[in-house]
């Protein structure tokens, strides 16, 4: 930073004493180029999944909206969702919207695009793996397009440095899934992200604002570690018939007919209201009220060990594979498999 500031000052001095309009423009450009990048974010970043493992890796339970400040419209959409909808050939390659680049299960690659003359950072290009829209963050000061411009899965993103933190604003998103059990965001959603690097870690905080489906801005944060050995698989999506269907059939539940919604709260002894989410359920006072009636289940029955836990993996039915006796199996096995699509 010191060198950058000094060099920028020299460039500014050149501007001050050069006197010509062309030289001024060039010196300004040089100063901007040098000050334009506070830190280098480029590289491959490994996702550690130490938070929201179930939601980000195997997929959330059907009807689990805990911690999501959604409204009734969002609940109605999510309740009607059937994950097998994703099997339809015409839907298999629909991209997740750009919020899923950092909030999904995959690793992250960040590349800088530099101006070949000035060296200034024109954009950061962030990519995950298959079926995620590339996240292009423009750093060159270009404005966001007209509200009437097309919306895409990637949206339109601009970035600016706030000290050593990159702040990104995204508009023009298509509607999409926030969680893989059908919780949606609309095409009116906007997103602010903050990229903060601390030593070998990158913490990405996303704040999604959506007047259609969300009662309050939705904040999530995820931390990655830089790792040159990390794989970011560029898998192309090739649609094919996975399940023969009657032409025109779209898997879904009509309102009030989803038979699996009650399973999640029952599995964890939660009141049905808690599973339905909403802004009030995300604040400490809700937890205090809940604790007066809540009784923890006697034993964990599903996803107990988690993907990053132990050196042995669980069988996702309650028992960690170890030399210990397995956990008591659930009285009724979970009938609704979580969403499968990554």
């Amino acid at each position, binding site marked *: 930073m010191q060198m950058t500031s000094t060099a920028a000052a020299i460039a500014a*001095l050149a501007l001050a004493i050069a006197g010509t309009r062309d*030289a001024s423009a060039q010196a300004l450009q040089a100063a901007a180029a040098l000050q334009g990048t506070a830190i280098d974010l480029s590289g491959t970043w490994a996702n550690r999944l130490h*938070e929201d*493992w179930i939601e980000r890796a195997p997929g959330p339970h059907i009807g689990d909206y805990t911690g999501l400040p959604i409204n009734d419209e969002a609940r109605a959409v999510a309740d009607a969702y059937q994950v097998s909808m994703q099997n339809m050939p015409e839907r298999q390659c629909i991209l997740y919207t750009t919020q899923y680049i950092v909030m999904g299960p995959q690793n992250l690659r960040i590349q800088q695009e530099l101006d070949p003359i000035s060296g200034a950072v024109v954009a950061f290009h962030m990519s995950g793996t298959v079926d995620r829209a590339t996240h292009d963050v423009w750093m060159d000061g270009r404005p966001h397009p007209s509200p009437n411009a097309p919306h895409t899965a990637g949206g339109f993103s601009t970035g600016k440095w706030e*000290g050593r*933190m990159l702040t990104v604003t995204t508009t023009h998103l298509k509607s999409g899934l926030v969680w893989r059990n059908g919780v949606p965001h609309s095409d009116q959603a906007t997103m602010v992200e903050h990229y903060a690097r601390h030593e070998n870690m990158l913490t990405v905080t996303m704040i999604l604002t959506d007047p259609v489906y969300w009662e309050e801005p939705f*904040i999530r*944060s995820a931390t990655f570690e830089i790792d040159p050995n990390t794989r970011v698989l560029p898998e192309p999506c090739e649609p094919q018939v996975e399940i023969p269907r009657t032409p025109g059939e779209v898997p879904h539940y009509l309102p009030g007919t989803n038979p699996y919604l009650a399973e999640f709260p029952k599995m964890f002894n939660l009141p049905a209201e808690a599973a339905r989410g909403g802004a009030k359920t995300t604040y400490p006072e809700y937890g205090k009220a809940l604790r007066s009636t809540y009784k*923890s289940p006697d034993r964990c029955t599903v996803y*107990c060990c988690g993907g990053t836990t132990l050196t042995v993996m669980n069988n996702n039915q309650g028992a960690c594979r170890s030399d210990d006796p397995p956990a008591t199996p659930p009285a009724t096995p979970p009938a609704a498999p979580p969403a499968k699509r990554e």
Partner: protein
Amino acid sequence: MPTLGRVLRAGAVLGIAVITFSTVAAQGRGAAPQTPAAPAAPAPPPTGKAGAPVDLTGTWVSVITEDWRWRMVTPPKGDYASLPINMDAKKAADTWDPAKDEAAGEACKGYGAPGLMRQPTRLRVAWQDDNTLKVEADAGTQTRLLHFGEWKAPGGAPTLQGDTTASWETGARGRGGNAPPPMFGNLKSVTKNLKPGYLRKNGVPYSDKTTLTEYWDLLRQPNGEQWMVITTVVEDPTYLARTWITSLNFKKEANGSKWDPSPCSAR
């Protein structure tokens, strides 16, 4: 079009020429040759409070939009999902008995610094003195002290909140003591000497060898909201197979009207 390097070189040459000319001219104006002044004593580093690039004081509420089922309520015994624990930790967690903790006066084991910050809680952050940032949590009625400067831990028995040293990370170097603090940066804190406790309230343990490192970032939103995101790194050679990294989100509140201290709960 000149390249950036040419612009800089040209600027540097011209700058040196201007500075040299200005210096010679200034020396020529005085009647007598100037005696070089004695070098000023280096200014002391700013205190933690004076050197703060951002203001973290105020009341903050944890917004539980992540890991809700593990944070808002106590999960069942044997639920270790997403925790990189080893088999020793698993065995210890499988013996978790909240009634036993209560009987032993250990109901606060889930409220030591590594577990406390994941509780649904409000934080009240204020300067206790120029080099001590006090962080109170109404969950469990706990207080953490973050010490800046040359503070040395007093030693002694491990405690629930441990001993914490703190510093500002601004990215700036070579700043003198009288220079204004930079406008951006984050707080880094390192906590050691922790009494054993629980990472998760269902008895997933951490040991007295644990080190808790936290990076406190302030996020300003276009609508005026402020968020504090704390990137949290837990290292424990006894019970963790690798570092456990999470990030916690707190929203700033206008005042402390919702501050509601409550005792520790083992359940």
